[in-house]
């Protein structure tokens, strides 16, 4: 398999990565690096991880052929790696439970996490409940509003959810708030970063845990289609963790294209999107502890981004993906909100699968590409999460009057009760 440890040099992937952290975290990060290095060299550790994910999180997740949509589009056959079937409904569980096992080894007992869509927050709160840790989740005020059902579940799971009112009130501000917590609480707390970003070793560590997706998929693919590579593997890219997870299984397949789908939002003409790599919209910078492509102005101030999917609405991107993009291995697309909603609707109606809005970006990219390819071609898409959490956003986008009536009635019932 393609080796993420072989391409890293002192925490960098080409020009990107590094650990731009306050000095107060130096010792903590050194401890984390060494705990992670020991763990990954211990064959028992990966075995324990796979066993846990097998008994608690439905792994290995299946690969599903989208027979109807492939036929409708009349081109390449589309296959989904079903990360939506994980415990808590997204690939986020892979990373979180891996870091949970690492916390046990390090003897830490409190989880700090940031969350955008809330999926990583729910996964972290779930892990904390299961493993007996305390848990504090930071979430931007705008995201709290967009993803209220996830806040409900985090709280039910026993986590303290702190609404972040700073900056643009989204994921990037939640990351800063989590960092601020950590610089005061590192003795007992571990920061469970939710994506393949942040200071070294996070991009590598998160990618390592997520590589379970690619490892499984490669094995499944070889059984399904012996000796044949996918024409392309496609994943949505927020910070890049589900993408890195799937890609690692196929980066050594020369004939296989590697495609990332970023948030095209309202189109790449203005700034209402989160496309950093697609059409080279991002510029090199340093924030949140690492060097990568960011959406920023000339002074290096981060821009407000937009996506219908809260989990893709982020200014930075994994330094490993920036590197893969620079060397021409990663190709990036940015489907717009409108295309994404159409892809989501099609997937629900034709295949009976409810994808997350984030994952629907990868689907939109696949639905664009498939008709341009022969029917013998095969695409493998990461279905990173399920869409139940997005019910409010999707209902808004689909303009369902019956749903709106139901919400209004429910609200009135609550009002009367007060």
């Amino acid at each position, binding site marked *: 398999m393609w080796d993420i440890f072989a391409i890293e040099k002192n925490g960098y992937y080409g020009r990107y990565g590094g*650990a731009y952290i306050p000095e107060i975290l*130096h010792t903590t990060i050194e401890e984390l690096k060494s705990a992670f290095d020991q763990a990954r060299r211990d064959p028992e550790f990966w075995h324990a991880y796979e066993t846990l994910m097998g008994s608690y999180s439905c792994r290995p997740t299946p690969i599903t052929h989208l027979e109807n949509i492939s036929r409708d589009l009349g081109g390449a056959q589309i296959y989904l790696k079903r990360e939506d079937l994980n415990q808590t409904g997204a690939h986020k569980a892979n990373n979180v439970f891996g870091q949970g096992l690492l916390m046990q080894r390090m003897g830490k007992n409190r989880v700090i996490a940031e969350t955008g869509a809330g999926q990583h927050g729910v996964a972290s709160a779930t892990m904390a409940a299961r493993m007996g840790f305390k848990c504090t989740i930071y979430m931007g005020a705008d995201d709290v509003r967009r993803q209220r059902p996830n806040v409900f579940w985090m709280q039910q799971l026993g986590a303290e959810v702190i609404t972040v009112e700073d900056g643009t009130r989204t994921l990037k501000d939640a990351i800063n708030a989590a960092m*601020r917590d950590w610089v005061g609480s590192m003795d007992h707390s571990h920061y469970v970063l939710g994506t393949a970003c942040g200071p070294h070793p996070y991009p590598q560590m998160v990618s390592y845990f997520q590589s379970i997706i690619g490892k499984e998929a490669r094995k499944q693919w070889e059984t399904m289609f012996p000796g044949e590579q996918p024409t392309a593997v496609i994943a949505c890219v927020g910070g890049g963790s589900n993408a890195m997870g799937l890609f690692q299984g196929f980066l050594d397949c020369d004939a296989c294209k590697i495609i990332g789908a970023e948030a095209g939002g309202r189109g790449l003409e203005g700034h209402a999107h989160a496309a950093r790599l697609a059409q080279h919209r991002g510029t090199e910078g*340093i924030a949140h*502890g690492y060097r990568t492509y960011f959406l920023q102005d000339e002074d290096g101030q981060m821009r407000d981004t937009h996506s219908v999917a809260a989990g893709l609405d982020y200014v930075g991107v994994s330094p490993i993906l920036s590197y893969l993009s620079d060397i021409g291995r990663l190709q990036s697309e940015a489907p717009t909100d409108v295309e994404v909603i159409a892809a989501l609707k099609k997937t629900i109606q034709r295949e009976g699968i409810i994808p997350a809005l984030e994952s629907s970006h990868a689907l939109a990219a696949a639905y664009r590409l498939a008709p341009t390819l022969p029917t013998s071609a095969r695409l493998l898409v990461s279905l990173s999460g399920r869409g139940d959490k997005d019910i409010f956003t999707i209902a808004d986008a689909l303009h369902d009057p019956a749903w709106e009536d139901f919400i209004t009635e429910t609200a009135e019932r609550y009002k009367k009760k007060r």
Partner: protein
Amino acid sequence: MNLEQHIRERLKKKPVLVMSHLICGYPSLDDNRQMLQIMHDAGVDLVEFQFPFSEPSADGPVFTRANQKALDAGTRVADCFELMAWASSKFSFMPVMMGYTNTVIQYGEDAFCQKIAACGGRALIIPDHPPEEDTQLLAAAKAHGLCVIMLMTPTNTDERLHTLGTKASGFVYGVARRGVTGAKTAFDTGVATCIDRYRHATSLPLAIGFGISSSDDVAFLKGRAEIAVVGTAFLTAWETSGPDAAKQLLAALT
């Protein structure tokens, strides 16, 4: 005279120097000019000019909000340079640039350091820049006669403190406790032990910051450190009680 010599010269007249702080553009550039006059009148020795950044992850809540408001008001990097140059031409304290790595690298390490030096700046304090990363910045600073200030913190091992000591110039910024800026610090034997450890790792003047808000705190530093850093306390006094209160606070500390 280099920065260290300047500091030593001033130390002949008083036992503990004061380094105050402002965030350029907050509450406004006009307010900043008034703040600087007050700092000068109070006999402050060094002033940190914080360049506002959209991701101030090492700052506490008061400074985080101030960073954001300065940017919302349209403060640009060019405004920060201008403010520093204005202060240098008028006052005798030593200006120090404080901010985040991205601000420096977007401008270009060399061009940024050149500009700071031209505006009368003496040093850079960049809390998200460990000395191992992007050594270009260190080289650029040196080329333009600027010191990159090393931060020593309570969680560093003795070995790490020693490494930081060998890379330091000008003065060393010793952090009094864990956490971000803004919260109070109990200046007690714990802090004294910390300062002792920093002292062992460097012969440069030692600044102590995070949570200094009273003359007792400054008195505690007498004989232990050379510079008291006053950050959040000044801004909080300004915000809650106005310029006169901020003036009184500084008068009590200097």
